């Protein structure tokens, strides 16, 4: 079931009230170079949480 922009948004359906990611957002989730950048960012955020919690 591949998501297409707006495909799942049918007014008055339960799922219509939520945020549906755009195709661009979905593509970026598996974009290698962008994810390498996010990998670094997420690790920094997690290290901060670990540091604050120990």
């Amino acid at each position, binding site marked *: *079931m591949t998501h297409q922009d707006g495909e799942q948004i049918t007014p008055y359906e339960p*799922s219509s009230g939520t945020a549906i990611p755009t195709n661009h957002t979905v593509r970026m989730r598996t974009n290698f170079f962008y994810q390498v950048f996010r990998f670094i960012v997420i690790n920094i*955020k997690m290290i901060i949480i*670990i540091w604050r919690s120990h």
Partner: protein
Amino acid sequence: MGRIVILGGGVSGHTAASFCRKWTGKQHEVVVITPNSKWNWIPSNIWVGVGRMTTEQVTFELAPIYKKQGIGYIQAKAVSLNPEGNDQGGKPFVTYEFTSPDKAGQIGTLEYDYLINATGPKLNFEATEGLGPDHGHSVSVCTPQHAVHASEELSKVIEKMKAGQRQKILIGTGHSASTCQGAAFEYIFNVEHELRVAGVREMADLTWISNEYYLGDFGIAGLHLRKGGYVTSSKIFAESLFAERGVRWILRAGVYKLEPGKVHYETLDGEKLTEDFDFAMLIPSFSGVGLKAFAKDGSDITDTIFAPNGFLKVDGDYTKKPFEEWKASDWPKTYQNPIYKNLFAVGIAFAPPHAISKPMQSKNGTVISPAPPRTGMPSAMIGKAVARTVTNMLNGKIDQPSGGHSMAEMGAACVASTGAGILSGSAVAMTVFPIVPDYQKYPGVGRSLNYTFGEVGLAGHWIKHILHYLFLYKAKFKPGWFFIPE
């Protein structure tokens, strides 16, 4: 010579044992009593459940690891505690029943100076009629063996889809008070991912069923994070993912019975409804493992030191009070039993003072809301904190625990897989601070928006994959293991 006995060799018990050994001198003894012969990295069981990993990849034998490290190991399940010793005097002791094949059923006792209860939960499949892989009609990913069975059943369902049969897949919680929604969340999206990989996604109806009041509650009253210029609820975050992946959801549902191909559940409105399925993975409720406790004269004091759900009472505030009066300070800080000062509980084994999510009750009086999770990072951190306390007390450095390890003061980093694959996988990476909302310190959402975040992506999958190997490395006491944080 002193002896620290740890009941349970899971994430929190193993962590406690490893640091007790590291921080006590060789003159002291550290002994683990656990019914399992293998250690299991539970977060990766979901990948076993979809056939991406084998049981060998998520487990290892405990005996050689403990022998190398100088930790005593008894393969047995604890049966009872005598925290005052018995009428013949002596030290406090624990009674256990061997589970190793050569001594199965034999009874033994072991005296202790300090005892850390880290038994984890009993998987209470019996609480829901027809639930579970052994005597019921659903599968589970709670143990490696369960996960292998789930993978086999999933393969059969996929074969049926390939043969042109439409299949209904139901995943979520199997009791009105289940916890561990996160594991079910991971499993449903891993199944969805595998169906896409197998080219049969269009043949499956995926449904999420849960006792949560709203999607994204996860038993921690949800969370709020900054996203796109807004402060967004995890409800929006989770609904977005469910809608994107075409997963239907049923919420506020207390499952009470399973028949072949049919689940019965009660809603908060008091309605009794059913849902059909061809494949169901439902998480059971958890309870204590059924440890008994006896005073010196042999009288039963189980109800004194254990909560009604079987978890050990520690230094939390267990006074019954309404949700509006709950405070962050209700949560335990030292995990020390208030009566027996050499008795501690860590991980799931400690009794939480109350839930984290707002309790909801159906018109029929059934409580339909998640129990508080105490797994993963907080479980290990509490294990380490208690190990520090116990070793300091044993070494005579302190008389009383210092505290400061409340779940209302610590954060957690969590990575929830939503599909495995080095280039095609994804996971939700999130942090919360603190785990238990503190509405006085953080008015409004109860947590720091600076330290609470979440996002979906391939990077999260890489992190979860790396953590799998990192924590196995640490658990095997490989060089430098203690530098790896919990």
